[in-house]
């Protein structure tokens, strides 16, 4: 039930066109207007217009045609098909080879719609914000070009109707991330960070690609629609390598892919470094959109994950651990953006727990709310850093509330939201995940896993509240700690920067309404509307979808229906955790950096722990050593040892050297003396004649069947100048039963090879001798071999 809509392609195309214009066309046209550089206003107008256009179009498409479809689908009630098709556009067949067919096609369904609005909406705001933030930048057009390019790629990612198309966007956003992280490439560290991001992403992409291959291997398709057909689903349940289901390996591979993009353990290391990029980039790419691509992908592939509870458990556990560890690492950071980066990693962990326990809606919900407040946080941070002359060291801030009120208030709203305080959006989404985790218990999970996840996340949530408010207090609370020079420049940011902040803050406050908690009345019907859940359920295989569970055979993922009391209890718990975190932070950092903490970090175990946390558990170093150093070392070693020494040195140049030595030897022998030459003739001639004429005879044998063997005399090396043998008149005798008497006699003719067949009494070893007698000089050459006749009945055949 999918409808073709011919406007879909415009959504990604608009930003891409913007990028093209900004990167190429305007630049080429600039000389026509008499200027070397294209004008900044033209640049950002193009960029913003393209993204806004995409946003508008997305709103229209979601609001009108998709909404119609959704309402129709919704109205059907129980009779409705599993999923509604959404809008679809087929542009052209990208690759069609053999059984593989990849269409360049886009699909807009409810899940995509959510992503679409987030990307274009927040994207537009960040574009606008950038006008102020990047003001005066030399490579202004390039920045907007990349930003547009990124938006386009991200839109391809979410709109792609098949995995390979998704992969185009997947890699494309990685590229833009690379370019934007390294935007200020004059600093080696920035460029390094960009490369690190790209490489870590590539590790994930490696798994993603393998996942695509394996999925095709299993189901013969890479198209989302095809993959959800029952036969494809059956294929996923096939037992594969090592006894697990096929679905498990595929899911695992895709999850590794997601880890790369969404910065989960163990591939999270690139994200904190990625903060080297301009702040709008951090906001858009490394907080709101690109990093959530992994979550999106898993939700998109939910039908696959539904078939491997093991894979889901891995997703959830990795997510939970990431959430916790990232939160811990955020404690020790003193760079504004780094704290936010770890916070992002941590929040992404939350989302992964959500999707890992099957609470897809919760995951997507958190994705949305996080997009708003984290984008806001970054933008606010950018605003702060803008004011602080670009420095992000929170130890040198403080008291900024007086100088930049708009920024401060927005920042506070975001902090409250991320800390999970009612009624801000973060509260609802985080609570959904916690509830999902608490109630999770899929087949084979055991009773504890869900509780473990919940407990881990709760600690992480506590940490979140703590470090966010540590940040807040260090930045805005207390007294200003910076030097005078910086102080003189402090000012509130222009409206182009603060208006987006305010818009985001507004959304942060209210967006929670789309996902009220699941409170049931007596009739088991929801008390509060759960818009997002309904909206997504038309696309995503959420828990509780009967049809897929039937296809699965067993109900592997039980519905998570917590009782109202439990739900409310959990909500209160989460709220409390948030408050505890905030007040702890207030207690310690309310008036600036805590000396106690500083002192604790300077001594004994405290120092050790602090160092470990500050250095991010030395994971970077581990990577540095295990990947980079190892790679480089291995590379050097291979190059020196294999290429230089073994292949080139020993084999190639070695053989040349050997031949050269031979040549030199010949030169030594050729000393000009005629007698030497003549002696060479005599000796050499004698040797050649000797070797050419050494009589050697032999025979080959070949077992034909059970006990029949065929013999072929071999005189190939026999030359008879020494004995003067007349080969033509030679006689050959075979003694085949080792009785000393000839069993077979024949004349031998060298031009016409002969064969002798003999039947033996069965398996065993036999001694066979062959004698060749020269007719002229009556010389004999004989050879005796022991042959083995095999018992062919046992093996059933012989080669």
């Amino acid at each position, binding site marked *: 039930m999918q409808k073709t809509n011919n406007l879909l392609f415009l959504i990604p195309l608009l930003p891409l066109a913007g990028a093209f214009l900004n990167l190429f066309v305007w630049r080429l046209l600039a000389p026509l207007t008499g200027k070397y550089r294209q004008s900044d206003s033209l640049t950002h107008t193009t960029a913003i217009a393209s993204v806004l256009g995409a946003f508008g179009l997305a709103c229209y498409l979601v609001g009108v045609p998709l909404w119609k479809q959704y309402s129709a689908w919704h109205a059907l009630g129980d009779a409705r098909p599993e999923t509604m098709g959404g809008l679809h556009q087929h542009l052209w067949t990208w690759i069609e080879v053999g059984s593989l067919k990849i269409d360049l096609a886009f699909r807009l369904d409810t899940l995509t719609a959510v992503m679409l609005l987030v990307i274009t909406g927040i994207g537009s705001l960040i574009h606008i914000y950038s006008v102020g933030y990047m003001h005066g930048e030399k490579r202004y057009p390039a920045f907007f070009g990349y930003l547009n390019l990124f938006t386009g790629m991200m839109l391809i990612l979410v709109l792609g109707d098949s995995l390979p198309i998704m992969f185009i966007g997947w890699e494309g956003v990685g590229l833009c991330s690379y370019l934007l992280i390294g935007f200020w490439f004059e600093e080696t560290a920035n460029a390094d960070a960009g490369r690190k991001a790209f490489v870590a992403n590539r590790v994930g992409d490696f798994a993603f690609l393998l996942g695509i291959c394996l999925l095709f291997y299993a189901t013969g398709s890479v198209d989302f629609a095809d993959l959800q057909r029952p036969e494809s689903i059956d294929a996923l349940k096939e037992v594969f390598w090592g006894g697990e289901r096929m679905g498990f390996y595929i899911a695992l591979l895709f999850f590794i892919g997601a880890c790369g993009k969404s910065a989960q353990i163990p591939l999270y290391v690139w994200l904190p470094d990625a903060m080297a990029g301009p702040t709008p980039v951090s906001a858009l790419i490394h907080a709101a959109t690109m990093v959530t691509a992994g979550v999106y992908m898993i939700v998109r592939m939910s039908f696959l994950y539904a078939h491997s509870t093991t894979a889901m458990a891995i997703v959830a556990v990795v997510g939970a651990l990431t959430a916790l560890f990232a939160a811990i690492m955020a404690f020790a950071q003193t760079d504004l953006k780094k704290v936010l980066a770890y916070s992002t990693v941590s929040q992404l962990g939350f989302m992964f727990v959500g999707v890992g326990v099957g609470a897809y809606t919760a995951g997507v919900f958190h994705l949305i709310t996080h997009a708003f407040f984290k984008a806001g946080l970054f933008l606010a941070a950018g605003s702060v850093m803008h004011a602080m002359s670009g420095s992000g060291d929170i130890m040198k801030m403080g008291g900024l509330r007086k100088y930049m009120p708009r920024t401060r208030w927005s920042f506070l709203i975001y902090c409250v939201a991320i800390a999970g305080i009612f009624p801000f959006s973060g509260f609802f989404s985080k609570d959904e995940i916690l509830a999902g985790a608490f109630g999770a218990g899929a087949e084979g999970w055991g009773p504890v896993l869900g509780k473990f996840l919940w407990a881990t996340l709760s600690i992480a949530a506590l940490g979140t509240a703590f470090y966010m408010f540590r940040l807040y207090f260090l930045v805005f609370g207390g007294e200003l700690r910076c030097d005078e020079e910086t102080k003189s420049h402090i000012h509130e940011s222009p409206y182009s920067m603060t208006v987006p902040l305010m818009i985001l803050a507004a959304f942060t406050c209210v967006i929670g309404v789309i996902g009220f908690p699941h409170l049931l009345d007596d009739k088991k019907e929801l008390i509060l509307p759960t818009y997002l859940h309904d909206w997504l359920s038309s696309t995503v295989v959420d828990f509780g979808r009967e049809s897929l569970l039937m296809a699965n055979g067993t109900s592997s993922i039980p519905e998570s229906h917590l009782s109202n009391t439990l739900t409310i209890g959990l909500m209160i718990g989460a709220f409390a955790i948030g408050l505890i975190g905030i007040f702890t932070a207030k207690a310690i950092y309310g008036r600036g950096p805590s000396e106690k903490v500083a002192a604790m970090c300077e001594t004994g175990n405290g120092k050790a722990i602090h160092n470990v946390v500050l250095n991010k558990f030395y994971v970077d170093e581990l990577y540095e050593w295990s990947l980079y150093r190892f790679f480089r070392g291995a590379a050097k070693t291979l190059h020196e040892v294999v290429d230089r020494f073994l292949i080139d040195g020993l084999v190639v140049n070695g053989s040349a050297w050997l031949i050269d030595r031979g040549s030199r030897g010949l*030169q030594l022998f*050729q*000393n*000009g*003396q*005629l*007698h030497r030459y*003549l*002696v060479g003739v*005599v000796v050499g001639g004698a040797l050649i004649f000797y070797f050419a004429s050494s009589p050697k005879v032999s025979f080959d044998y070949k077992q034909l069947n059970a006990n029949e063997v065929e013999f072929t005399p071999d005189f190939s090396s026999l030359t008879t100048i020494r004995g003067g043998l007349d080969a033509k008149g030679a006689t050959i005798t075979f003694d085949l039963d080792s009785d000393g008497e000839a069993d077979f006699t024949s004349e031998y003719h060298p031009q016409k090879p002969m064969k002798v067949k003999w039947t033996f009494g069965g398996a065993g070893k036999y001694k066979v001798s062959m004698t060749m007698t020269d007719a002229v000089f009556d010389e004999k050459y004989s050879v005796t071999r022991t042959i083995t006749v095999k018992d062919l009945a046992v093996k059933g055949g012989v080669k």
Partner: protein
Amino acid sequence: MSVFYDITVSHFLVLAAALFTVGIAGVLLRRNALIVMMSIELMLNAANITVLAFSRGFAGNNHEAAYQGQAFALTVIAIAAAEAAVGLAIVVTVFRTRRHSDIDRLTMLKN
């Protein structure tokens, strides 16, 4: 019975082979170009003796073969003479440029 009756073709062949060997030995052992040339002449003459011995052997029943052998021998003699002439001229040339004719000291061209 006289001892001469026992001289057959084989005896000549053995003689020729011996002469030939002496010739080879001379070539291999002597350093003076002239003597080497003489040894080579010895080899040619050994061959001639062989030819003539065979020719004589064939004379009884195969006249054509006998004539061929004789013609061959005459050719060889003639050519040996020509060869000697050329060889001597070359030895003279060598002697004129080097003042010796020791072939082992001619090592300007080597390697």
